[in-house]
């Protein structure tokens, strides 16, 4: 069953006086419980697709449906609420808030849902435990290594138990060892917790962890490898 449905999506944007077409009628599905890697050269529209699925950007036309919701039809306020419930997003450069501890960073998505302080604490502790950082919860981002920062970002992405986890080049700034740890963690999230994961990556090794690999070129899906789930 498709958790994410992209139907006849057109996306263009204006660059100076030129209109740049990113997608011209893109159709693609992502199955529930799948771990999909989006690959392709720079400018092929990988991150734009991630942004459309996360409701951070809107298609020029066409439909983006996630778990039955027409994301492209929601207004800004509805999208924010929807994102808080359904999306966990991980960035290449971690993007933890430097003034907050690892605990407080992971707690952020839970501030948006009606939970008591005790419930928040339990969930944050579990999330940090899953990424193996329960002993670093009082550390600030500057006190963590790159790999630990990214694992904290993943804890932040999973703490509210979202429908979908989106990662934009999560290993792009990590050394080999830290990359391996993060990828192992993602594999575990997919295997053990049945989380649906879409990862944008240039790293073939990262893509190997995925159950499906989609290759995009100039906004067109040119190749599909592996099983969808």
């Amino acid at each position, binding site marked *: 069953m498709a958790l994410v449905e992209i139907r006849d999506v057109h996306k263009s944007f204006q660059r100076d006086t030129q209109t740049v077409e990113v997608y011209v009628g893109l159709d693609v599905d992502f199955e529930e419980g799948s771990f999909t890697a989006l690959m392709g050269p720079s400018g092929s529209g990988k991150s734009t697709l991630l942004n459309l699925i996360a409701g951070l950007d809107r298609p020029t036309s066409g439909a983006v449906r996630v778990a039955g919701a027409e994301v492209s039809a929601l207004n*800004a306020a509805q999208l924010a*609420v929807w994102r808080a*419930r359904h999306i966990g997003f991980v*960035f290449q*450069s971690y993007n933890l808030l430097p003034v907050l501890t690892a605990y*407080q960073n992971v707690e952020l998505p839970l*501030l948006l849902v009606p939970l008591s302080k005790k419930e928040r604490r339990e969930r944050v502790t579990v999330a940090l435990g899953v990424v193996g950082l329960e002993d670093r919860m009082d550390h600030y981002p500057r006190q963590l290594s790159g790999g630990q920062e990214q694992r904290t970002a993943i804890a932040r992405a999973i703490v509210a138990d979202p429908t979908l986890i989106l990662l934009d080049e999560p290993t792009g700034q990590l050394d080999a060892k830290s990359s391996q740890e993060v990828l192992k963690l993602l594999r575990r999230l997919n295997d053990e917790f049945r989380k649906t994961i879409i990862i944008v990556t240039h790293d073939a090794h990262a893509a190997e962890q995925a159950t499906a690999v989609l290759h995009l070129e100039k906004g067109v899906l040119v190749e599909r490898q592996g099983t969808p789930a």
Partner: protein
Amino acid sequence: MKYLPLVLANLGRHKRRTVLTIVSVALALFLFASLRSVVTTLDASSRFGGADRMIVQNATGIVFPLPMSYAARLQATPGVTAVSWANWFGGRYGDGKRFFANFAVDPASYLAMYPEFVIPEDQKQAFLRERSAALVGRRLLEVFGWRVGQDVTLQGTIFPGPWTFTIRAVYTPSDKVISDDVLMFHYDYLDERLDRRMSPGWYVLRIADPALAPQVARRIDDEFRNSSSATKTGTEQAFQAGFVTMWGNVRFLMNSIGMAVVFAILLVTANAMMMSARERTSEVAVLKTIGFTDRTLFLLVMVEAGCIACAGALLGLGGAKLLYGTGDFNFVGFLPGFDVTPGTLGIGAGLALALTVASGVVPAMRAARLPVVQALRKVE
């Protein structure tokens, strides 16, 4: 409440900048409270005056005396129930750096005229009995470390020479707008040393019915219109207000300076808030990605601005209230009862609120309207 750690963390991001911004807000509101308190204190002192008291002065000006013979004629004026008189002495004590007012008064009638001077009965009798006795305000006694029974010598400026008085009584004003920074002594003592050539500087009258003050004033001024010293009679309140107007348009000046200071600080605060918001563009984008709504982000920035303004207001207005309310300020006797009124505190709080809105609204709108994809593109 659950967002409080986030707000506090953001405020603590640049501690020095936050502290300096709070201090600048505090300083602005402290200055505003101080300047406005000058206006309110002057207003209060101009309103002071017993409703049944009137002042008779020389029509040419307060520095010109009135004949002693007027006392009996004033007493005989219909509607007048009591008469007293006083004279500005203008003596200096010590090096003269610490100014205080000093008057020669007719002791018995003057104290009967002003029940606001609260004096222990034994001291009052001692003052009335002794020709060279002095009555001093509580503050003056404390400022110079004087004690009852001590001789103090003033250097006369209008009436040259050393003038020694013995402190026999100390008064405490029953109304805080009355200065307790004054020394009074016997008019007779001055008159005697000047070979009975003294004349009163002004007369104070008590009238039977305050409603009849205009008629009494007209009657007195008509009575002396063609004499050697024409009079100008008015209520004590009008007399006090006349002193206030001698300061010029103080109200306008003080209010203008106060507002200019607050406006300048508003720009500083707004700039600091905008700088802080600009630095956090990427973080705002991340929070939006997590699911924070535009409204929540708008409120978070406004709360930050509010925290700065509130802390500044507490320090500035609270500091002014504490300092002036308990610090016994009266600006060397010129502004007795100087204090920050609840009205001033209210306006100051209003200014802090306006400061919050004015300094917070632009960065808050900016955060709320931030296009998340463009912001994230810059981050990535």
